[in-house]
């Protein structure tokens, strides 16, 4: 009897302890989680709802989407956004990797100096630095055309011509992002065990073989991470485009001739210049789906486990 009572008492006590724990956990969470719901989850659902209604009536309609898929400018912005991704993501990762490997190879005291300098662009204000690049690119006051003249090369329109504007913007983004990639590749390189390289040396592997058979596969987690982050960020490109195009040099954001317009710039123009918020919401739903698809594809294709 006494034994049973003791057991029950322990059970009761653990139960009340468990209850107490739950109570503490919920009281810690309730306010922040409700706030989080209010600023993240409710608005997301609201954006969906808005995209299926118009400002004049709250009845369900596909009008916004129909307008969206028939708008050439929208498709142009989708095409541009994908172009940004294809140009920017591989190049910023390639430069980041080359820098990380080169700096690792240099070693010694210079290592930290190089790292800090190449990382600087990532640390600086995107808007401020976009204006600096805008001056560099300026056809009249810019230094780039001046250099081309000195080298007897034909001058370029840079941001002023539809054929070069998108690439010019991509250069700015790569310039700013490659330091971030370098930093993460450096961190990735540092966790590769030294023994692998020593074993490869004993086996007489060349530097090239060592890189492709040891370094590259072991960097796989970093590569996957940077690819996903890079694609998602690039799909959302806005600030650089907004500050490198538009304004007093003529035309709206995403110019010339919509050649640099991304989906987010399109959303901004439609939502906050034309004040067609419901229509703009439809374009953000499209962006959401795009990001979702890309993330899923990347998880599938990159997550193959490499064998050593």
């Amino acid at each position, binding site marked *: 009897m006494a034994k049973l009572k003791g057991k029950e008492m322990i059970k009761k006590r653990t139960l009340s302890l468990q209850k107490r724990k739950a109570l503490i956990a919920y009281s810690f969470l309730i306010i922040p989680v409700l*706030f*989080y719901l209010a600023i*993240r989850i409710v608005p997301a659902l609201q954006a969906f709802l808005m995209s299926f209604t118009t400002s004049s009536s709250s009845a369900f309609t596909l009008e916004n989407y129909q307008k969206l898929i028939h708008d050439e400018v929208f498709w142009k912005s989708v095409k541009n956004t994908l172009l940004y991704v294809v140009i920017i993501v591989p190049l910023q990762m390639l430069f980041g990797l080359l820098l990380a490997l080169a700096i690792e190879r240099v070693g010694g005291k210079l290592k930290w100096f190089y790292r800090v300098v190449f990382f600087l662009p990532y640390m600086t204000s995107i808007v401020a630095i976009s204006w600096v690049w805008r001056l560099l690119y300026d056809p009249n006051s810019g*230094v780039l055309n001046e250099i081309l003249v000195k080298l007897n090369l034909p001058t370029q329109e840079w941001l002023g011509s539809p054929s070069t504007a998108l690439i010019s913007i991509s250069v700015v983004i790569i310039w700013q992002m490659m330091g*971030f990639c370098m930093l993460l590749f450096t961190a990735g390189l540092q966790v590769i065990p030294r023994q692998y390289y020593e074993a490869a040396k004993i086996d007489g592997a060349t530097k090239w073989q060592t890189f492709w058979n040891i370094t590259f596969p072991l960097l796989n987690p970093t590569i996957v991470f940077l690819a996903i982050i890079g694609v998602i960020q690039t799909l*959302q490109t806005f600030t650089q485009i907004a500050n490198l195009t538009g304004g*007093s040099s003529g035309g709206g954001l995403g110019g010339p001739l919509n050649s640099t317009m991304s989906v*987010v710039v399109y959303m901004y123009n439609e*939502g906050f210049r034309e004040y067609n918020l419901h229509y703009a*919401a439809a374009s953000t739903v499209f962006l959401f789906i795009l990001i979702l698809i890309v993330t899923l594809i990347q998880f599938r294709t990159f997550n193959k486990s490499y064998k050593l």
Partner: protein
Amino acid sequence: MKAKNFSVAKIIINIFLLIGIVAVSFPFVWMILSSVKSTADFYSFSFWPQSLDFSGYKFVFEKTDFTRWYLNSFIVAIVVTFSNIIFCSLIGYTLAKFRVTGMKLIFLIILSTMMIPTEMLIIPWYVFSSDFQWVDSYWGLIFPGLMEAFGIFLMRQFMASVPDDILDAARIDGMGEFKIWLRIAMPQVKPAISALAIITFLGNWNAYLWPVIVTNTAKMRTLPVGIAMYGTSDAGGIQWNTIMAMSSLTVIPMIIVFLIFQRQIVEGIALSGTKG
């Protein structure tokens, strides 16, 4: 380290890196040079300023709300950073350390919101900001950033590694649960907190899309919005020396702060990247 001093390969790599350094730092040099040029130097191109002309800086401080923008950016970034440190670590700690029903579900829901692009939330934010008259106010600038999914995720990962024993020991000593989080758990994850602080501050200091939408008057602009608005809506053509003065005043302090805290910042960003 191996005593393999000056190989040819190393010299070539150093040359390659030095060229890279010139390419990376040139825009900064150009920014500073241009900020002290006179308007004439922009009409007829000259590499060096013909004479030191500080009229750009003068204009910035006398004719624009630049100092106010600086203050606004600072207020927003500080409040948001502080809020993220408190709330993300509290949520992360609770989700990691209290094994009670519902924790996994809450974590999954928060995690899944990382997939939602901010752009999608901006339109509803704007709608209810206008309804509640939050447009053009500090609260309007601040509220979307107060808690970030990534911060919660990061803190949960680190809080999970805090040993249960020390938390239980504090409980036996009769310490309150709130105090245990603040005094025992928080100091255990200091590197993660400084990483979170750095990326949150940086992200908000640079934020552009939401601030440009939610601010109307010049007084409420943040630094990026102020610079962009000055540049794009200026009717008489772009005043390059003024914009470069603004850019220099924005970028140079950031570089100085970065150089002072370089180790913490570099390690913090690497940490949030590798654990994230």
